[in-house]
């Protein structure tokens, strides 16, 4: 019994180390100045300083890439959340076979490899003669984010009392008021998790962005890093940037988890 417990402990630690070592590695080496990865030349905050003062090579390119990434992720996930919620309500109210078919169709884009989504969207935009750039990247991101929102909102709909919308109408709410005051608040947790998932999916997307950004030199963080690494080694300042991004996402996750456990405690 005791040895079994020890093995269980060791196993979980191995899993954790393998999972987090690469991130830890980058975080540690963001606090040294060495150009090549893996060389420790003493503790230094210089890379962080360079990142924020902009005194690094091609810093404007990096800053605009970060900006693009965040703006595209925000626009795409807001629109995907709205579309996905409406779609989920629609699919939920279908009956029998139609509902199953729509659910199945919603699942396909999620299991479809990104590269195929990327290439097929590229071909679609070419076919429709839409010049590729910012708009096409946003459209593409909305496309692959929406199914995730549908997937997150659907369980909230099944938990919902089927009469709740009618109850609001019955008490004098117009259909719009009923949607705003009753349906949306009830679906909000699903919409929020759908939004966060969309946001992170959009943030780290490479394949789809790569194929839909066209030739106008639009870069998001992922395409920028890809190009940067191909040019001859990673710019050292990317290490602190990644560390910061990781910490930011960690904080957001923690806040969500704490809020959720508080909510479930209240009930």
């Amino acid at each position, binding site marked *: 019994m005791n040895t079994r417990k020890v093995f269980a402990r060791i196993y979980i630690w191995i899993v954790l180390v393998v999972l987090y070592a690469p991130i830890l590695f980058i975080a540690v080496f963001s606090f040294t100045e060495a150009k090549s990865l893996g060389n420790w030349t003493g503790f230094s905050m210089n890379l962080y300083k360079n990142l924020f003062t902009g005194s690094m090579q091609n810093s404007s390119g990096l800053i605009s890439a970060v900006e693009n990434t965040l703006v595209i992720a925000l626009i795409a996930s807001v629109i995907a959340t709205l579309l996905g919620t409406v779609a989920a309500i629609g699919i939920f109210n279908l009956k029998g076979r139609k509902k199953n078919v729509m659910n199945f169709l919603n699942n396909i884009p999620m299991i479809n490899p990104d590269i195929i989504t990327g290439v097929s969207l590229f071909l679609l935009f070419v076919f429709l003669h839409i010049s590729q750039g910012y708009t096409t990247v946003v459209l593409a991101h909305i496309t692959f984010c929406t199914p995730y929102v549908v997937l997150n909102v659907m369980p909230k709909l099944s938990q919902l*009392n089927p*009469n*709740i919308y*009618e*109850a*609001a*109408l*019955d*008490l*004098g*709410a*117009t*259909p719009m*008021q*009923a949607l705003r*005051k*009753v349906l949306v*608040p*009830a679906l*909000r947790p699903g919409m929020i998790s759908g939004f966060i998932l969309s946001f992170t999916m959009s943030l780290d997307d490479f394949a789809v962005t790569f194929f839909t950004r066209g030739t106008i030199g639009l870069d998001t963080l992922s395409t920028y890093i890809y190009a940067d690494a191909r040019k001859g080694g990673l710019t050292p300042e990317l290490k602190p940037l990644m560390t910061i991004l990781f910490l930011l996402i960690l904080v957001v996750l923690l806040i969500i988890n704490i809020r959720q456990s508080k909510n479930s405690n*209240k*009930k």
Partner: protein
Amino acid sequence: MKENIIDIRHLSKSFGDKKVLDDINLYVRRGEFITLLGPSGCGKTTLLRMIAGFLKPDEGSIMLDGKDIAGVPPHERPLNTVFQRYALFPHLDVYDNIAFGLKLKKTPEDEIDKRVRKVLKLVAMSDYEDRDVETLSGGQQQRIAIARAIVNQPKVLLLDEPLAALDLKMRKDMQIELKEMHRKLGITFIYVTHDQEEALTLSDTIVVINEGKIQQIGTPTDIYNEPVNAFVADFIGESNILKGRMLRDRRVAFIKHEFDCVDEGFGEDVRVDVVVRPEDIYFTTDPAKCQFTAKVNSCTFKGVHYEMYVDTDTGYELMIQDYDPYPVGSEVMLYIDPDDIQVMKKERTENKYTGTVTAEGTVEFLGAEFECDTKGFEVGEDVTVKVRFEKVDLLDHEDEAITTGHVEFILYMGNHYHLTIRTESGEKIWVDTNDIWDKNDFVGIKILPKDICLEKVTAANE
């Protein structure tokens, strides 16, 4: 003010091919407690939803205070609904749930406060205003749902099986409270339930609905004592439903005995159905009073009374309820008061369809081809097909069956079962049988060629 608050005329509704409500005519008096009663799927909830405005009728009109409200959306109707599973808003607390309707109407804050507190007191939930609705028990949630509806002072309160999810004890308590609330508020209540006991307890008027049609409208005592057909008799309370023959006015024969009764106007020597409630069959020791004898078959204590099954000297099984038990196996003398015999017109005496002769020796009806004697009829000719109830064979397999169906309704008639079978083609066939089947059983249907009777289609048959 008109006496009738709601007037429903020729209301019909279909979902796809299925007619769920068929030519409903009903009025509701101001201030009354009216109950729509029927088995699940009979259309009662559909009717309530149309009054609330969630469904649009295909045909007919619903008048509220003399005005047709067909085109009025639910949020503009001065009616409120208490839903089956409460349908409280989970993100709002008790107070905000109740205040929801008043806030939408832009009622002043202090007025809202006053009214919310008043209804909370009425439903005995005064200290719960800040509670999260999901922390409340089923009964408490139901009270809040009722409070949320009546705080808006609707002209009519619609209740869709509001007590169905509560346990028995809670249900009984809430029934008394609902009745009390109805008395205090003076609002018209339209109540939907499948529970006949609940309907009898609560209502001023009961509307019995089956298969989209109103079967009977009346006070609880009317419905109980004078059911108009076998369905109502079987659905409301316990009953002995038997085949009978009206000999002349005030004289009826059933279970192979003759009885005096109080019914008139059926004609002479007419086949009828007879209902006798189990508490209306009396034991006697006086041979002069005895109308027939029977042997006690079983005797079960039911709390207040004993429920006994007896076999009559003529081979019929009857249910009797009495305060005193009689030992199993004993011979007893029985009589029935003329007042307690309810005679009903027979709805049907045999199966009757319109069919087509498809070839020499076969006829098509019920969506299948049956063999029979087609002498005297031409191929392709439309004919009237008649089959007696007892001539339909039911099989528990498909092998020799001509068509198949499901048992939809079972009526015990003292010495045999009268079954309603829904065939694959969606039509009905009625069967008299001694075999025991369960509701929803799958059955194979077979009719011997000699038992299928063909007739020329005449104008009278159409």
